[in-house]
């Protein structure tokens, strides 16, 4: 009897071993597939675009109806857009997260409504943000500003850098709010109480103790927002991006060129799509590089802050 049990238990454990191997195999396969996909994508871009990619490409303006030359204005526009978006979105998102975590009663109707709104916002398709940007920022706020300011020589009621940045800021707001909220919640309750016990007000506690502790989380929110914002094209399709400009934008009311948008137009609307293929690939490489660069800068800043905070 005992040997029978031993035999069946041996077979069961062999089955378990097989299942274990199968699981390892599947997950390994997934990793290989994804990495392979990534490499083939990057390889495709590099092969198609490297011939056209050069230092001149990066710093010159386009020529000949966007079939030759460089794409510096698009780089400039994209970077400017993302920076403006961060300036507009991160403080508001941080303030919202601070309110939700530190001030609001967690079960109040208001807090729950705000959270619900944030979650819903996160699920809205990008193109809808574009329509919102056009309808609200450009036509309502912009035209309203024109009416209020009168004739100042600047027209606000049209697609512009500031409205595109505002639209992207709204789009990335949920990501910022969630990251900052998580960072604030991670600050131990005892730390806050220690500050209060010394006679600090709630705001002093937030400003001097909680926020410095949460700074890495805020940076994470910034990084995520930048990653998302740098790549989105749909929201800025008709809110400020243009295909070609005589000069670089130097005011918030100017329009701007944008790498993602440029790529879109190059591949769908240029007179000779095949001729611009190398250009498209090269633009793609530049867009990826810019996104990586912005991310690296933010990650670098975050790791420096993290190092200082832990010291």
């Amino acid at each position, binding site marked *: 009897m005992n040997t029978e049990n031993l035999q069946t238990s041996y077979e069961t454990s062999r089955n378990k071993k097989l299942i274990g191997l199968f699981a390892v195999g599947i997950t390994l396969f997934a990793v290989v597939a994804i990495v392979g996909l990534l490499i083939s994508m990057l390889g495709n871009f590099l092969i198609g675009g490297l011939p056209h990619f050069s230092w001149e490409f990066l710093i010159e303006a386009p020529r000949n109806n966007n079939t030759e030359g460089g794409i510096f204005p698009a780089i400039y526009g994209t970077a400017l857009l993302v920076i403006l978006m961060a300036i507009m979105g991160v403080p508001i998102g941080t303030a919202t997260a601070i309110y939700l975590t530190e001030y609001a009663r967690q079960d109040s109707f208001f807090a729950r409504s705000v959270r619900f709104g944030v979650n819903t916002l996160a699920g809205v398709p990008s193109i809808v943000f574009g329509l919102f940007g056009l309808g609200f920022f450009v036509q309502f706020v912009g035209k309203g500003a024109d009416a209020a300011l009168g004739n100042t020589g600047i027209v606000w009621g049209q697609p512009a850098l500031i409205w595109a940045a505002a639209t992207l800021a709204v789009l990335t707001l949920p990501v910022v709010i969630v990251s900052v909220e998580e960072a604030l919640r991670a600050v131990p309750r005892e*730390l806050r109480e220690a500050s209060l016990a*010394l*006679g*600090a007000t709630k705001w002093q506690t937030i400003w001097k103790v909680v926020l410095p502790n949460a700074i890495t989380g805020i940076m994470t929110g910034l990084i995520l927002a930048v990653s998302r914002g740098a790549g989105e094209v749909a929201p800025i399709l008709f809110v400020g991006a243009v295909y070609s400009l005589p000069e670089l934008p130097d005011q918030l009311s100017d329009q701007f060129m944008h790498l993602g948008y440029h790529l879109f137009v190059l591949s769908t609307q240029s007179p000779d799509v095949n001729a611009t293929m190398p250009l498209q690939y090269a633009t793609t490489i530049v867009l990826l590089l810019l996104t990586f660069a912005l991310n690296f800068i933010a990650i670098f800043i975050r790791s420096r802050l993290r190092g200082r905070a832990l010291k």
Partner: protein
Amino acid sequence: MAKDLQTKIRATDFSFFYGKKQALHNISADLYSNKVTAFIGPSGCGKSTFLRSLNRMNDVIDGTRVEGKVEVDNIDIYAPNIDVVELRKRIGMVFQKSIPFPKSIYENITFGLRLNTKPTKPQLDEIVEKSLQRAAIWNEVKDRLNDSAMGLSGGQQQRLCIARAIAVNPDILLMDEPCSALDPISTAKIEELIQELKSSYTIVLVTHNMQQAARVSDYTGFFYMGNMVEFDKTRTMFTRPAKKETEDYITGRFG
């Protein structure tokens, strides 16, 4: 004996509610100036809740409610016109888990001082040295005041928290199980510290270690299920307790 005693804190029929749940039932006690009063009792009996009620630290929890009175220097601290922030400057608190701010040792001590005033550097230096000396940690840290407080050992961190609390010159020091996370040597150092500090401060201590209460305190209150079952001089409490529950707890029949 009684003629020296001054009541610093007086609780009168003080009850505390977490929402609908009543955590403290009609606590009445006099806590005397420049004495150490300890609260003992099994887990969940309300001793920490009562301690935190003394500097209104429970206000930060949503949905809490109080009845009855707590008077500090004859002023009802739950009166509507009381500024809680000012109250907490006069009542310092040390927590179970020592939590220095993730800043330098120097900045930890000066945190409370710089909240509302702008003292000069010499003034700050003097207070930092005095506080760290009174907390019996000056010699160990005087050469590394600008290092992070997180680099100190557990016992040192707790003494730092004590120094931080006394830097703002409170009258009263509340200590919520200050030694429960520490090794016996650090515990002994802090118990010694408490004896020295009582000449300048009124100390209220919560501890789940009965022997510590017996070693360190002048008066002891025994809490059980949200009631203060007995409150008396420590020596009396531990040798001739009046109530049977007290005796059962002290002799270890339950806990």
